[in-house]
């Protein structure tokens, strides 16, 4: 699917975060992760409804885990013109190993608490 674009003010720093990333490993096992997208606007951004649909569409797609950040980077990069685009995916641990996949520009993701999720701790 294509990502639509919207006009935004130039040089706005934009970061999107979703804790609801899901895709399939080649084994068929679902992978869960948190997605961070960071860039500086050159006058446009992606339509958020399209971004949500795109993220949801990955539920039925199969990837090598290490390639997931590139897949998302490439999708955004081809849809809108931005500066310093970076994508980070923090995957849930598998076999006791935690993976962070990073493609594009460096940035430090801001981890926001989901204020509606009552902490089970």
């Amino acid at each position, binding site marked *: 699917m294509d990502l639509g674009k919207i006009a935004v003010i130039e040089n706005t720093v934009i970061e999107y975060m979703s804790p609801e990333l*899901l895709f399939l490993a080649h*084994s068929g096992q*679902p992978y869960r992760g948190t997605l961070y997208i960071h860039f500086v606007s050159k006058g446009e951004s992606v339509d958020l409804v399209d971004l949500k649909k795109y993220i*949801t569409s990955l539920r039925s797609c199969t990837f090598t885990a290490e390639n997931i950040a590139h897949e998302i980077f490439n999708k955004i990069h081809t849809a809108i013109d931005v500066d310093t685009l970076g994508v980070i995916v923090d995957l849930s641990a598998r076999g006791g190993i935690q993976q962070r996949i990073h493609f594009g520009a460096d940035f430090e993701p801001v981890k926001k608490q*989901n204020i*509606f*999720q*009552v902490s*089970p701790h």
Partner: protein
Amino acid sequence: MPNISDTKTYQMKRSDEVQQLGSEHTEYTYEYAPHLLETFENIHPQRDYWVTLNADEFTSLCPKTNQPDFGTLIINYIPNIQMVESKSLKLYLFSFMNSGEFHEDVVNKIGKDLVALMSPKYLEVVGLFYPRGNISIHPTFSFSNGEAKYDEIEKHRFLNRNINPQRIG
């Protein structure tokens, strides 16, 4: 019950009880599949103890919009004779991935499946679902086998829900 103080006997018993754990090829199913659940024997039936299973990656679909839902499931139970094997539970929970159900129905369905599987003394399933439309839904299923002690636990926890979901880790 075999003499489980013998390590080899114990390992053989556990190996025979469950099929999916350690299997070289795991089949993932994305449609509701309660038959995936497996049990093993509780070899400490003389004392009551809690087992807590946390599942942070639960996902299913909204039956109306088909949009994905996500949540954490916390399962607490006091075993009787049968206990649920965790890999089979993982595969069973993954099988909800393309099932369309409301949060309240999912939690009750999982609770009933686990009761049917294990006949536990006490069991509860807490669902902590991510918000949709600014509202997060946290249903709780609870079951007692009818013995006075477990009825008392169910009553206490029913009246005091949200105080402590007993999550570990």
